[in-house]
């Protein structure tokens, strides 16, 4: 049964910021990525590390288009688990090292001055 939960004030979460809140007894990371809001579980599938307490950053890719050179990209869109540095795309929950592993994501809405999560 999906319900709406208030997780904080819009002012609490400026662009580029993220925070961990408790929703229905569950730790959830809420992110503001380029003005869009996202929510992920604060638990890495790898060894259950506190994923959303990690740092938000970009990441490195290397493709044929750049002659296989390492290139920095996706600044502000990647959360890195503080335990073993597994990287996740905040906007999709996709794990970068494990193509078949994707975390659940929840919708975050702005309701006046407050932020709500649908869980």
């Amino acid at each position, binding site marked *: 049964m999906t319900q709406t939960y208030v997780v904080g004030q819009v002012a609490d979460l400026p662009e580029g910021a993220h925070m961990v809140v408790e929703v229905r007894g569950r730790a959830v990371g809420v992110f503001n990525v380029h003005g869009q809001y996202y929510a992920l579980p604060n638990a890495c599938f790898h060894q259950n590390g506190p994923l959303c307490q990690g740092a938000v950053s970009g990441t490195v890719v290397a493709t044929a288009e750049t002659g296989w050179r390492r290139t920095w990209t996706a600044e502000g869109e990647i959360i890195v688990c503080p335990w*073993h540095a597994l990287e996740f795309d905040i906007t999709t929950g996709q794990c970068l090292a494990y193509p078949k592993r994707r975390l659940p994501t929840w919708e975050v809405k702005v309701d006046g001055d407050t932020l709500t999560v649908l869980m």
Partner: protein
Amino acid sequence: MKSSTLEGHPLKKDGMVVVDVDVHAHETPAVLAPYCEMPWRKTLEHLATVPARYLDIPGFAPSIGLLPSFPHSGGDRRTTVTSAAQMRQDLDDLGVDIAVIFPDHLLSHAALKQDDYAVALARAYNRWLVEEWLTQANGLKGALIAPHHSPEAAAAEIRRYANHPHVVAVYLPTCAVDPLYGHRRYDPMYAAAQAAGLPVMLHSVTLVHPNFPFNLQGYETMFATHLLAHPFSLIANLVSMIETGVPERFPELKIAFTEGGIAWVPWIMLRMDKEYAERRREVAILKDRPSTYVKKMFFATQPIEEPEHLADMATLLTLFGGEDSVMFASDWPHHDFDHPSKVLQIPLSDTVRRKIMGQNAMRLLRLEKPQPEPAR
């Protein structure tokens, strides 16, 4: 040999094709000299006068012979094959239909100094191989030596023989190679192999050059040196190729590892996956865990591990998709050769046996199934 032939084996009678991805032709300085360009022909003519020992000729098969040894207990079994006809007869006795020929002494080729000399030797060997061993449709196939000393020269050799009907692979001498085979200087070689549709086969030997691969020169027995030098050299190069994304940059290139057994494969695969979880950014060229690439590589059986419970080998295969990537190899006629019957003793389904004894190699090497009565 005759007493242990496979002719009576039910699968053999039922038409199973046996492909042996590792046998050795005995190339000496004397036989290569006529095929070698000047001035290095002079070197080979000189080396032909030097007393040779098993896989040990100064300046040709460099060996750091520091270790004392006891006589082998194997009696006086012949450990060289000096002609195509002799090889064909030996393979018939072993029950092998198709075999891929590697060199003897030039297993140490990567350790040779003087780039021009090493390239000339590789060219001479390749000419000799093609003209003396690969002249008939009799199941004898060959792997070209790619001299790592000059990747451009190696690429030229690959292009020269790309369409030869019996050249089926490119041999990368694996011991003492520096830098390791993942280095980008080798890209021309891999591009040429990929374009030619030829797999690269890394083949190891007991050669523990100082610092390669690690300080194994500190051991005091061949027991320790031989058992680790082979798999370590393969592991070091496999990791190098993963590190620089060779399988990503050359997606059609097929890669095979020869003469290290197979038990190390799941270990290094899982070890790389573990490391990758934490350090993906450093190897961002990879699109998935290293194991996904390892599972597309090929591995030759010899020296096949012989655990107390042979069924453990069947389990081992399941850890890295080995049913579709492991290929029988005998290493005939070397001291530690495996008879095909040893691999056939592993409790596997007949379907998997057929894959390992021939079909996987036929896929790697793009071989046609031999006719019922091949012309020999």
